[in-house]
């Protein structure tokens, strides 16, 4: 059986499951496919899927101020239903994008950029800025950027690619760049200083980071280069996204595209949908206005968590608030939130890899998922909540 992996935003479409073994999936993908499954429960008692969904309908139906959180690991169809449910119930909707790459995805949506396949076939300089793909999106280098021999880049990393890594520490990806004769690791303290160095180098002057001159020289050799920005870039900019955008404008002459390096499988799909429907990344349909993630968690009385583990991914000062709320947890795999939070209802749907529908990869390309049986999928749960019937 061939499937699309939904463990990260690479959405690898070459995964084979055969004879009980999983082929070509990285450790993240394997952990998703073979991780310990969550058990359907209501008030701690094991039950079947239908009963758990029925209880979820009751709990959600009694909510005065519901929160729907997560959604960046589920398909676009589930996200759309969740927004419909939020509109109907006056819920607050949020994912992890305000804590990671949401603003960078917005930036990428507003600019024209290549797809990852186009980059694989033509791209030369890859700059990973505030991103360590080796752990977040493990096959990004081998499938799309530094290693593949494809299209115009048949000599691969040996001669046809150039890797630049910008980070505050020596990451695994930085180690590859540092070791390679066709690579460069720039260890930054302040990202704004690096932006300044790029701008100065474009005018032939030296800034704090003199290495950028070499990166620019390499960029001149190609008609396609890209900056892959991760959450480290967003937080490193410390609100200075405009200056980064200004730098991108100046680098456009060197064919530098900006592509987000978000890790969550369908964060881009969520951001695209939220921008279209609400104009913001975290929105309170009850009040008809955008809000912060902290407000979202503090204002709600019922939290519907879908495909997320906030005790692992959201600062405790925010996520711990749901311990005082009624929680409906929809997650295929066991989670820390499921273990430590006294959830009223836990629903274990089918793993998103088999749920069918579509997800949007980090470069904006829609990828069709394997499977399609809506029974017991995230989509089926959301549809039941929307229609208030199992």
């Amino acid at each position, binding site marked *: 059986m061939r499937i699309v992996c939904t463990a990260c935003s690479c959405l690898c479409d070459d995964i084979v499951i055969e004879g009980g073994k999983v082929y*070509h999936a990285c450790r993240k993908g394997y*952990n998703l496919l073979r991780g310990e499954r969550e058990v359907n429960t209501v008030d701690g008692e094991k039950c079947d899927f239908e009963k758990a969904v029925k209880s979820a309908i009751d709990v959600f139906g009694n909510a005065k101020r519901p929160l729907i959180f997560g959604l960046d690991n589920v398909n676009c169809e589930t996200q759309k239903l969740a927004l419909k449910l939020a509109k109907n119930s006056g819920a607050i909707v949020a994912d992890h994008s305000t804590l990671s790459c949401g603003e960078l995805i917005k930036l990428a949506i507003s600019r024209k950029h290549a797809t990852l396949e186009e980059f*694989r076939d033509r791209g030369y300089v890859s700059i990973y800025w505030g991103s360590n793909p080796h752990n977040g999106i493990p096959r990004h280098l081998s499938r799309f950027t530094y*290693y593949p021999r494809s299209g115009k880049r048949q000599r691969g*990393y040996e001669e046809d690619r150039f890797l630049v890594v910008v980070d505050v520490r020596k990451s695994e990806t930085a180690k590859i760049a540092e070791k390679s004769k066709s690579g460069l690791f720039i260890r930054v303290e302040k990202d704004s200083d690096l932006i300044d160095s790029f701008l100065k180098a474009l005018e032939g002057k030296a800034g704090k980071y003199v290495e950028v001159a070499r990166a620019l020289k390499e960029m001149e050799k190609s008609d396609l280069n890209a900056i892959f920005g991760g959450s480290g870039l967003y937080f490193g900019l410390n609100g200075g996204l405009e200056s980064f955008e200004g730098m991108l404008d100046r680098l456009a002459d060197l064919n530098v595209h900006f592509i987000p390096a978000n890790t969550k499988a369908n964060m881009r799909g969520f951001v695209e949908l939220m921008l279209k429907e609400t104009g913001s990344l975290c929105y309170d349909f009850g009040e008809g206005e955008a809000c912060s993630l902290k407000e979202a968690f503090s204002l709600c009385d019922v939290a519907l968590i879908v495909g997320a583990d906030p005790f692992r991914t959201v600062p405790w000062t925010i996520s711990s608030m749901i311990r005082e709320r009624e929680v409906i947890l929809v997650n295929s795999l066991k989670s820390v939130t499921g273990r430590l939070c006294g959830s009223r209802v836990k629903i274990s749907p089918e793993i998103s890899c088999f749920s069918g529908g579509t997800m949007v990869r980090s470069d904006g390309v829609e990828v069709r998922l394997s499977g399609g049986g809506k029974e017991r999928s995230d989509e089926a749960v959301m549809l039941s909540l929307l229609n208030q019937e199992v």
Partner: protein
Amino acid sequence: MPSPLDIYKLLPKTNCGKCGEKTCMSFAFKLLSGERKLEECEPLFSPKFEKNRKKLEEMLAIVEKAKETGLIVNEELCTGCANCIVSCPVHVEKDPYNAAMGRGIEMDEPILRIEDGVVRVVNLSLCRRYGKERTLCVVCRENCPTDAISFVEEA
């Protein structure tokens, strides 16, 4: 992989010569290359060295595994990124439209393949380091940032 010094430290270090080697260090080297067996060190089987002998047996089990395959993958250090697979020159030549392009490898009997989230050695006989016209290729190891791959010669 243990080094000769790791092994030497656990031997009696008396240079008694009963094994046929002049020194314990030389015995350590030969244990590692497989030319000598642990049983040839008589003093090691006295109760005094029982703890050391057990440790040595564990160490040499890893070496045995290495000899079967020629290279060792420390699965605990592997993230399944596939850098080793896409950079391997043999894969590039024999599977230009899959492995070389970063897709899941599809050639019959590949040298390496990602199975259950980590890289596994499938068929070492194609590796350029082995066979008749061997070359000192280190590409897979050099492109593994977590040092999950090592070769038996480096022991």
